[in-house]
Structures are given as C-alpha cells and as structure tokens.
C-alpha cells in the first residue's frame, strides 16, 4: 500500500509540474553553406549535447544531457530549445560537440539517437558524432571528402567541449555560427580526406571541431 501511495503522489507531482509553462532558451545554429565553386557540401550532420547555460550573475543551470542531431537538410533541427529554471541574462553557453560516452553504451535509444538516422555504427557500437561529406577541387581535380567522426572510448573519444560567450546579452535566444569549411580546410591541411572509423586519426580531427563554432 505504501508503494501505491508513493506512486499516486509521484503522479500528482508530475501533473502539477506539467501545468506550468517551462521557460526555455532557444539555441539557433546558423550554418554557413555558401558553396563556393571549389567546395560542395552534400551531407552535414552532427550531434550537440550536454548544454549548460551560464548567467551574467555567475549562476549556472544544471547540464541538460539531451543529445540533439543537427542536420543541414532539416531546418527544424537547427533550432533547439534548452529548458531553464529562470529567466536571467545569459553570459555563455557550454555544450558538447557530439554525444557523451554514457549515451554510447546505453543500448537501443530513440528520437535523435535512433540508429535509423544513419549516425550509428553497428560493428563498433557508438555514434558518429559528426558527419561531413562532399567534394572539393584540389589541384584542379574534383576530390571527394568523407568525414565520419566518432568513437567514445578513452583515446578514441571524439566529442569535444565548446563554450561560447555571448557578445550581446540575451535572455532567451542564442545564435551559434557554424562554419564547416573551417573543418574541411583543417582536415586537408593534415591530408585527411576520408575517415570512417574510430581511432587516433578521428580523435585528431575531432580537435578541429570546436573551431567551426563561433558567435
């Protein structure tokens, strides 16, 4: 009977909570896709997770672990909402580019983490944190590039932390500029045009990921 009482109480609490409108912060990814004659991007998708908002008064929201799949072909995916508990002026936002390791060992997941989304490796379990495909002209020749950056374990880990401090104070929305060309150039500078497996190279390339995000 005690168990039943607790369950009813929990149910009431749930209802109580859902009637309040939860304040949230909009995070908008503005992807630069001005394809030049040199570079053509065909696929661009990545995960962003573990958002944490920091306010100008120094306080921080709890980390929101949800993983969001951002896909250049899906406009709605570029706009995500991070729930907050208070409406205060935001100083900065911290997040993880990619998925955290716990997510990668948690079995079958749904929503943005559904393996059907093409961002999951079955043979070496884990998420592709960042996928960028296309082609570019190198020494007059059309050269394809294919970057599938993933891996979560130890040295193979490819998720990277990013912190963005806002130039202009905002209360409810944050724009993040995303420039995939920065990554393409960086990868080319180390002569990498194709990465399809976790490993040292993927982890090295992952170090270039934070640079593509700015405000």
């Amino acid at each position, binding site marked *: 009977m005690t168990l039943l009482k607790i369950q009813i109480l929990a149910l009431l609490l749930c209802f109580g909570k859902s009637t309040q409108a939860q304040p949230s912060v909009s995070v908008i990814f503005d992807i630069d896709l001005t394809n030049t004659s040199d570079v053509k991007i065909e696929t661009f998708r990545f995960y962003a997770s573990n958002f944490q908002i920091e306010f100008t008064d120094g306080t921080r929201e709890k980390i929101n672990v949800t993983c969001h799949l951002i896909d250049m072909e899906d406009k709605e995916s570029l706009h995500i909402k991070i729930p907050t508990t208070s409406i205060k002026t935001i100083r900065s936002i911290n997040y993880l580019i990619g998925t955290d390791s716990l997510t990668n060992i948690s*079995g079958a997941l749904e929503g943005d983490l559904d393996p*059907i989304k093409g961002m999951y490796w079955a*043979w070496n379990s884990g998420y592709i944190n960042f996928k960028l495909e296309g082609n570019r002209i190198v020494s007059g020749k059309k050269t394809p590039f294919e970057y599938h950056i993933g891996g979560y374990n130890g040295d193979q880990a490819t998720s990277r932390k990013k912190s963005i401090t806002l130039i202009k104070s905002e209360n409810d929305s944050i724009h993040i500029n995303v420039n995939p060309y920065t990554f393409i150039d960086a990868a080319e500078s180390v002569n990498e045009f194709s990465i399809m497996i976790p490993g040292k190279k993927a982890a090295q390339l992952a170090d270039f990921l934070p640079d593509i995000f700015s405000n």
Partner: protein
Amino acid sequence: MILFSFSKSSKEAILSDMIPKKWPEPVYQFENNPLSEEGFRLGRDLFYDVNLSRDKSISCANCHLQYTGFTHVDHKVSHGIEGRKGTRNSPVLINLIWNNSFHWDGGVNHIEVQSINPIKHPAEMDNTLKNVLSYLQKSSNYKMKFSRVFGDTIISTKRFLQAITQFTGSLISSNSRYDQYQRKEIEFSIQEKKGLKLFKKNCNSCHTAPLFNSNNLESNGLPIDTIFNDLGRYTITQLKKDSMKFRVPTLRNIEVTFPYMHDGRYKKLREVIKYYTEELNTKTTYLSPRLKRKISLNSNEQKDLIAFLLTLTDKEFLYNKRFSFPRK
C-alpha cells in the same frame, strides 16, 4: 498505477525464474526493457522472420539454429543472402545476458544493439533498418503484437531491437548433465570426473564455470588465416596489443556447435585439444598469459577431458519448444 505495479512484480518474477541459483548477476537485467511473455514471443517471431533480410530469404535462425546451440553447425563462417559468405564462425546464442560485449571482436557494447549488425551486413541480411521498420509497420499482425508489448501500435527501432533482445536474452542454458551433477541430481562416470578435474586445472581459468566463458578478449595463439586476414579486436581498437584477440566463447553445448574457433578451422573437439596441447606456440606475441604454461595431456587424459566437455550439452535447452520456430 496498480496495474503497473503488478506488471513490474511479474516481470521480476520472470527474470528471477530464469537466472539459475548461485550464478553471477547478469550484466543485462532488462532494466529499460521490461521482460514479458508477449515481449518474448514478439522477439521470437522477429528472430524467425525471413522478411528481416533484404531478399526475404533468411532469418536470424539461418545462422543460429536452436538444435546446435544457436550457431550454424558445419559451416566455418556465416552465410548470408545470395550465398554470400562472412569471415567469422557464427557465434552461439547462449547465456548472452552475462556478456558485456558481443561478436568475436567485442565490438558491440550492448545486447540491445547487437542485431543491427547482421541485419545491415552485406554478407548477412544486407538490409536497412528503414526497410525492416517499414515492413513491420505495414503488418497488422505485428502492429497488434507490438501494442500488446508496448501499449500502443508504434513500431520504432528501439522497440524492435528491445523485442528481439527479450528473446535472445532469454536463451539460457543451465540444465546440462554438468549442472545436474552440480545440483547433486545425477552422478558423473569416473571418466567424466577425471575430465572435470583436468578441465579445472587446464581450461577453467579462461572458460570459467558456470558460464564456461569469460568476458575477456584474448589471443589463443592461433596463426592468422591468410584468406580472411582477421585481426580480431585490433579492428576495433587499432592497438597492436589487441592483434588476434577474440572473445573467449562459452563451452556450453560444445558437442553440437562445431566447427570451432572464430573462423571455424577445427571440426572436431580432439583437433581443438590437439591444438592446445601440441601446436600452440607459447611464444606467440600478445598470447593470453594464461596460455604461457604448456598444457600437457596424454591421450587418455584427452579422452577424459572430452568426456567431460560432452556433459555440457543441455538437451532441454536445445530442444525446448519455447525457443523454436513458433508454429501456429
């Protein structure tokens, strides 16, 4: 809410009935995938459904046959659609919920995501999750079955994978003659007793009772097969020290699961024992430390050991109708 608490306690009852007494805690306990009779049956339907493969020709059971411990007897490597061949011996599906990784290279880290591999692999079912889900979503029969398990007719990847897991995770073999001997229900012959003693001394450190496997990835010193060039664990970690390391498979039902080793190179148990006693090079780089000491068994001892290994056959498991193709 009352219904919910009832279903929860019956779920726990199902799981605790499945786990043999004195066995270690399973790694996977269906935490987010409440085990139910309907879920098990749905998983079984999916396991035996040829529509999961691209050309609708093979089901999971093609490479994992119950009578042979859910492996493909007499086939060195797995066979897929259109006669395509893989590079590894299809593993047995026995006591999987005690495993913390799956596949010979341990590349799969969770039982729920394991089945994505054979479904997508070009040399196996060569299908896509999208195709599989769209097939299931069009079937009124599956819609009804999914709603019985999950409460509504939504058929998602997660539900599909979890349903299969309810079946594969329930494949528990714990009633071999060895188990009956342990429970003091039967007596072993003198030869079987000798074999058990030899097993404990020479084999149990890797193939550890009661599961007769370990979750370690080890090199047993087998030279690489130059056709497959399979480096095992190395393909996952790309670390030299992981070259030729494979999961240590269970020996339960070993009598019926031939051929043996990751590439099925040995047909007979006596060939396996000959390998460990005569052919194994103890100087092999990255060899399992447990194999550095030479195993020596004379021909009588080898026979005794085999007599013991045959006690690991669990006929109840191999012929249990509950695990068989669901005939209407």
